[in-house]
């Protein structure tokens, strides 16, 4: 599908320049230049390095460090699920989790069984289900005994190359198209962001949704219920990154929040406490979700994130003059 914002980009990029630094856009240019764009550049670099490494040597044990570096970089931007991240389902294809039915692993097993090099050509592979691509597909190839023992080198390389390609496209779209579009919010011809408030609200919404995702999915899925804890549902548990992803996501959300609204002491303090609580869990795969004595600490962190969400709404939302949408907040 063609996205309408791609067509008028050149004109809008020119329009955007005089607005940079304007007080009326408080926070938005800073958030883009200090967190969003550098975060995407770092992800491009990390996935390029992973791709290079895979081409040189595709054995799981040698690829794991560069895969982890790429995942670390993704955690810096994984909460940005708008515009270029939605094009062609990129964010889903980069990190398809949760996958409760295991559809990614099934598709990968079929690809391995087919052993058809044509399916792994870049154009064909880009059409493979989003569930069977990206970081979690590579995690299974590098850590899952069921897949890592297979002669899976070709699939590993195809997946790493596809990931690096998506990272470049994502970064390019942000830098050349979508960031200028946000900065020209309200300008004639900008039908994506009709007012400056809409652009500010768009990033604010990513912040709030990102925090909810970490609280309700990254922590909530392994927690399950007290009577039925589900540690096996933790994110990236094969590689033992579950707790690390929570810590990195909180750090990324903190950077975005403070770039949008630097004068936010309660937000700053709230993130600091949440991050130190997360670091103190010492539970890489959230196995403690099923251990009554350790479970409580995960629950307390989740409650802190819910409280932090309210603080963000008041302090950052207040500074930006925006809130979660009237209809989005309270549907029927």
């Amino acid at each position: 599908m063609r996205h309408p914002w791609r067509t008028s980009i050149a004109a809008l990029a020119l329009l955007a320049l005089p607005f940079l630094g304007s007080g009326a856009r408080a926070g938005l240019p800073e958030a883009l230049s200090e967190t969003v764009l550098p975060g995407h550049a770092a992800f491009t670099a990390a996935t390029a390095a992973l791709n290079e490494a895979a081409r040189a040597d595709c054995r799981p044990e040698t690829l794991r460090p560069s895969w982890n570096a790429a995942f670390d970089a993704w955690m810096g931007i994984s909460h940005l699920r708008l515009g270029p991240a939605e094009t062609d389902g990129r964010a889903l294809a980069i990190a398809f989790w949760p996958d409760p039915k295991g559809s990614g692993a099934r598709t990968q097993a079929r690809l391995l069984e087919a052993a058809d090099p044509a399916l792994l050509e870049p154009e064909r592979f880009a059409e493979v289900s989003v569930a069977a691509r990206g970081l979690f597909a590579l995690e299974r190839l590098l850590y899952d005994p069921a897949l890592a023992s297979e002669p899976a080198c070709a699939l590993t390389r195809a997946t790493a190359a596809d990931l690096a390609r998506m990272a470049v496209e994502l970064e390019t779209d942000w830098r050349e198209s979508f960031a200028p579009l946000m900065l020209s919010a309200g300008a004639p011809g900008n039908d994506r962001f009709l007012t400056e408030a809409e652009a500010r609200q768009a990033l604010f919404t990513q912040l709030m949704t990102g925090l909810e995702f970490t609280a309700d999915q990254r922590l909530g899925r392994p927690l399950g219920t007290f009577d039925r804890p589900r540690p096996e549902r933790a994110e990236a548990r094969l590689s033992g990154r579950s707790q690390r992803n929570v810590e990195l996501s909180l750090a990324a959300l903190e950077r975005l929040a403070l770039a949008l609204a630097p004068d936010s002491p309660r937000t700053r303090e709230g993130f600091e406490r949440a991050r130190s609580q997360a670091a103190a869990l010492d539970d890489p795969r959230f196995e403690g979700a099923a251990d009554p004595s350790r479970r409580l600490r995960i629950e307390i962190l989740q409650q802190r994130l819910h409280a932090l969400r309210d603080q963000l709404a008041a302090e950052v939302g207040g500074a930006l003059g925006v809130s979660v949408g009237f209809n989005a907040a309270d549907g029927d």
Partner: protein
Amino acid sequence: MATRRHVLAGLIASAMSRPSWADAGSPAFLSAARLPSGAFALFGLTEAGATVFTIPLPARGHAAAAHPTRAEAVAFARRPGTYALVIACASGTLRARLTPPEGRQFNGHGAYSADGAVLYTSEVVAESSAGIVGLWDTAGWHRLGEFSSGGVGPHELRRLPGSEVLVVANGGIQTDPQDRSQLNLETMRSNLSYLSPDGALLEQAELPEELRQNSIRHLALAGDGTVAFAMQWEGDPAEPVPLLGLHRRGEALRLCPPREEDLFAMRGYAGSIARSGGLIALTSPRGGVVQLFTAEGAPVAGHARPDACGVAPVAGGFVVTDGGGAVTRLTREGFAPLARAAAAWDNHLVRI
């Protein structure tokens, strides 16, 4: 309070004459909104999104029903609703205020009979959420009676085109009568019920067991009686489920998933639905997106618009309203701005 005095003054001023829609400045749409003051109002809007009239509402509104011929509309309170206001749209005055009987609550939607003589209201028994259709005489505005909606927690209710048969989206969710908290998500079961004007259950369609937690809530009807329905998923947000379905009496339900890359774009929540020409539009304020499908339910496109919810047909496409106050035109290609009001448009844009 000012709002209430307004409403009462309007009631007293209510005229004997019954002007037609042309006298109301020919509004094309009705929408409830929240004003910057925090008060609530019903707006009449032109096709270009210009405000024709504004009428204060005593509390947050939801949807409205337009009389088939008279310049009259009934604005429904948001669930659990304690009021429905019959409004003479030409003069912006109140014709009547409907209050549900003891132990009943309005659920935000309603529909007129083909001749406009009867108003059907979507209601629940407050204590149990058992679905009720209330019947009101539109000449004297007294209650004629009620019958079962065929399910729990009915939401939108429509009359099939060229027929007196009602179709009700029984959302299946039992809610607390005070705070709207959901009480039966583990056992809920939504359905689409077809009812005769005297309450006989003519036909009922249910979703397959694995989609039991999909709540059928809003409806858009085609001239041939095909019902397009919009759903809200109450199950695991990690499960990608279709939020659009199609049904025609005597046939099986058809579910219409989006393209794979858009599986989670709506965040499991469709707020409103409309059809125009060969297209169906499904809005998601939570996803900040409107998805377009063909009349047969094949995905066409998705376009971003923050907090978009209200949607109604115009020639060649749709008009969409959002919580930021924008009124926009949507076609297959995307959005174009029409107008903006200092109002947060509420869930529904109702075509008159």
